[in-house]
């Protein structure tokens, strides 16, 4: 097995892909967005509960590949409790990680999200890893419900 493949499908990724965290619907979500990758069929709903500027709760459901699902699971775990500005900052870091590689970012700031560093060697999978982040961005930008698509 190539080591790049092992880097992509790290144990953390496989674990979050199989047993995604925050995989549920939030009743009474204040923001909601749909993430759709029409090419491969990844399709998620993202739910947020905002308390002022703070992301009080965040969750997702839907279906997709191991990368997109693990990314959604890790993303929701890392930004719960953060402010909108902190979440946006994290997205910028994460985007650099998956497009340019781990050398270009501070891995300590990314925490568990660093598990997705292998994605940068797989350009066709960047959109899987970033799908739910784009959904987050549009959920934060929109007043209520939004649909994003990465293709």
């Amino acid at each position, binding site marked *: *097995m*190539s080591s*790049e*493949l092992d880097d*992509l*499908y790290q144990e953390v990724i*496989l674990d979050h892909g199989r047993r995604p965290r925050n995989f549920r619907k939030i009743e009474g979500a204040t923001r909601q967005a749909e993430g759709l990758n*029409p*090419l*491969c*069929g*990844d*399709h998620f709903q993202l739910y947020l509960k905002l308390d002022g500027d703070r992301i009080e709760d965040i969750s997702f459901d839907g*279906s*997709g*590949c*191991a*990368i997109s699902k693990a990314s959604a699971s890790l993303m929701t775990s890392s930004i719960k409790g953060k402010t909108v500005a902190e979440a946006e900052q994290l997205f910028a870091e994460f985007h650099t990680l998956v497009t340019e590689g781990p050398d270009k970012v501070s891995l300590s700031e990314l925490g568990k999200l660093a598990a997705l560093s292998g994605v940068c060697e*797989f350009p*066709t*999978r960047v959109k*899987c890893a970033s799908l739910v982040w784009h959904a987050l961005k549009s959920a934060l930008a929109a007043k209520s419900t939004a649909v994003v698509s990465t293709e």
Partner: protein
Amino acid sequence: MTSPVHPSPPEAEVVTLHRPVREAFDVERVRCEFPILARPVRGRPLVYLDSAATTQKPRPVVEAMARFFDQENANVHRGVHFLSERATEAYEGARERVRRFLNARQASEIVFVRGTTEALNLVAFTFGRLKVRAGDEVLVTAMEHHSNIVPWQMLCEQQGARLTVAPIDDRGVLDLEELERRIGPRTRVLCVTHVSNALGTVNPVKRIVALAHARGVPVVVDGAQGAPHLPADVQALDCDFYAFSGHKIYGPTGIGVLYAKAEHLEAMPPWQGGGDMILSVTFERTTYNRIPHKFEAGTPNMAGAVGLAASLDWLAKLPLALAWEHEQDLLDYATKALSRIGGLRLVGTAPEKAAVLSFVFEDIHPHDIGTVLDREGIAIRTGHHCAQPLMQRLGLSATARASLGLYNTRGEIDALVAGLEKVRRMFA
């Protein structure tokens, strides 16, 4: 002056003394004509199982196109000069080559287009617009590619007509009784694929055409996956329209064919306006060119047509019946091999199939399967295969699809099976 003592003898007649009873199909020899098949991918031999997306091109096709550019290139149908004449001969020669391939009655029934998608759009927005009125129906099948759904849907929206759908069963077989029931008094056109790109199902087009014609309904056949794998004899099928793409039949991209019965082409309004599709233009009125030129506005894809003709020549030089037999053997071999993999389910199990193996594997997403196989040098397609309504019907969001060409081997199927075992080890 003396006349030559030894005049040249007449050209010797070639006599074959030992004609083989049955020419063999040698897949290794065929592979030699595809340099790309010999290149390594990610440090491993390439296993190309994505021919339904696009086939690889044999050297004769590439060489014919290079020769055209090197020796014959000029604009067609215009100049009085030498090269323009040569280019016109090459382009119109390609049309005649396609006519022979499809067994059309006349070359004027062959319209060159960019590909199957453009061909189907052309039919929808000329023939369709002519025939389909408010309250009418266009009948498609549940297994159509988006390119044989969306143009008709757009037409129906514009005309206030209704798109109706002939259902399939869980194996991916068209229900002919239901199809027949759906051909109603308002059905103006029936659109069906020859071979399903997502399932491999071969549809009984000849029977479907007979059913439709008995009710006066013309039939449009999407031959993108049909022409590369089955005889596409338009007179035998008796279809009204047949569309296919060059790049799925070992030819270049950007060139495709719309066959239409001459009577339809004569009645259809032009599609795009411009040069080459006219006889005369004034600001008051334009007289359109005769068929098929009426439908070929602008400078056509000349080298593409030459490349397509070369691919059809290349096919004709093979023992084609045996080549297709090889492909069918390989499909059977692969079907058995994949069926033995626990947790793998083939999607599309029609008794009549061609060249396509769609499958789902445990609950591993097809995209992850594709990435792991890619690292083994194995190219497959993953996703909805531009047939989302079909995927919805089957309750799937995506499948993995291995598709075959004449150049594939049993060894490559074995590599696929081994690759899938790696996928299982990684995700199970």
